[in-house]
């Protein structure tokens, strides 16, 4: 039985695709057969972050419309043999997906022995975002410690509790927050909402806190999900988040200010 995880946020640019790519890689690395699907029809980017953009022949929409079969469209990752990417269409629009079509693709993937299906949601609350979350068992709501992102996340949490298959069946999607671009220094200065602030406002706990770090951009530049850069704080924070999704109990890291030496303290600009 495959578990379907939607990575969503409402607001754009908060790190959904970065998170989808890293969670999928982490789950695959943990031995789970994983597929990651780009639901952002018309604006595909997951392929680029995963580093397989030159190997996209068929996409999600082709499969939904029966123009290709699943085997043809699933792109096998070069790093993990149990990881597959299903790209979004670049030429169609968001109406090219239907609920029935998406359901069939998800069922077919599940029937192929996958453990996890990660759905990378587009921004917004329109059809693509709705379809990405509709069949989810679990939701990772990506949020920046910033007012508009927090507000949009609350809206998304409302939709998860009402407009999903689970909700319609009287069940609940298992929801988590994933805080990205977190800067303990700015929190300490009082310039940024803290983990506790965000948890308190949204009434939900974090499954991971990814610190603001230059390696995130470097990783997307090179098409290697940041979780694979285990020298970076962001990468290690994603490793922890994956462990928590798999049920491990891991304390948060990189969420407090690193103590500096005497000289850097005195002369910090």
């Amino acid at each position, binding site marked *: 039985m495959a578990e379907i995880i939607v990575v969503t946020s409402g607001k754009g640019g908060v790190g959904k695709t970065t998170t989808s790519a890293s969670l999928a890689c982490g789950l695959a690395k943990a031995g789970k057969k994983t597929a990651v699907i780009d639901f952002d029809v018309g604006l595909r980017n997951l392929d680029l972050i995963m580093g397989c953009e030159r190997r996209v022949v068929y996409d999600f929409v082709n499969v939904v419309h029966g123009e290709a079969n699943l085997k043809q469209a699933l792109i096998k990752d070069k790093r993990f043999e149990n990881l597959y990417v299903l790209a979004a269409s670049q030429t169609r629009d968001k109406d090219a997906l239907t609920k029935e079509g998406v359901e069939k693709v998800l069922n077919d993937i599940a029937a192929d022995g996958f453990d996890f299906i990660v759905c990378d949601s587009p921004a917004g609350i329109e059809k693509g975002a709705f379809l990405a979350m509709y069949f989810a068992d679990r939701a990772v709501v990506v949020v920046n410690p910033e*007012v508009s992102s*927090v507000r949009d996340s*609350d*809206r998304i949490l409302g939709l998860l509790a*009402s407009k999903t298959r689970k909700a319609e069946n009287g069940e609940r999607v298992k929801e988590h927050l994933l805080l990205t671009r977190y800067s303990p220094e700015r929190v300490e200065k009082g310039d940024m*909402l803290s983990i506790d602030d965000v948890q308190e*406002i949204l009434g939900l706990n974090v499954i991971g806190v990814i610190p603001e770090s230059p390696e995130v951009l470097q990783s997307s530049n090179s098409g290697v999900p940041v979780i694979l850069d285990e020298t970076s704080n962001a990468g290690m924070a994603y490793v922890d988040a994956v462990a928590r999704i798999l049920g491990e109990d891991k304390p948060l890291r990189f969420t407090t200010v690193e103590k500096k030496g005497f000289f850097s303290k*005195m*002369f910090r600009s």
Partner: protein
Amino acid sequence: MGIFDFLTQRNKNTANVAKSRLRILIEQERGLRDAPDYLPLLQRELLEVIRKYINVDVDAVKVDLHKDGDHNLLDISVALPEKEA
């Protein structure tokens, strides 16, 4: 904190401002989230009817839906203008 930081310090804790703004806003939005779609329309029509008889402000009519145990309670309040002297 560097020793010269006091020169540039604005000493504004904007994170606290963000938190309190979000608290109020989100509470308000959650209240509307489960409300039926007809509520804003109902509010507008009520206002029109009331304005036929009394000259009230546009924000004088408030329509809220509350959960009271097992049933929903539609709470309509109309603020009447103060009596002119």
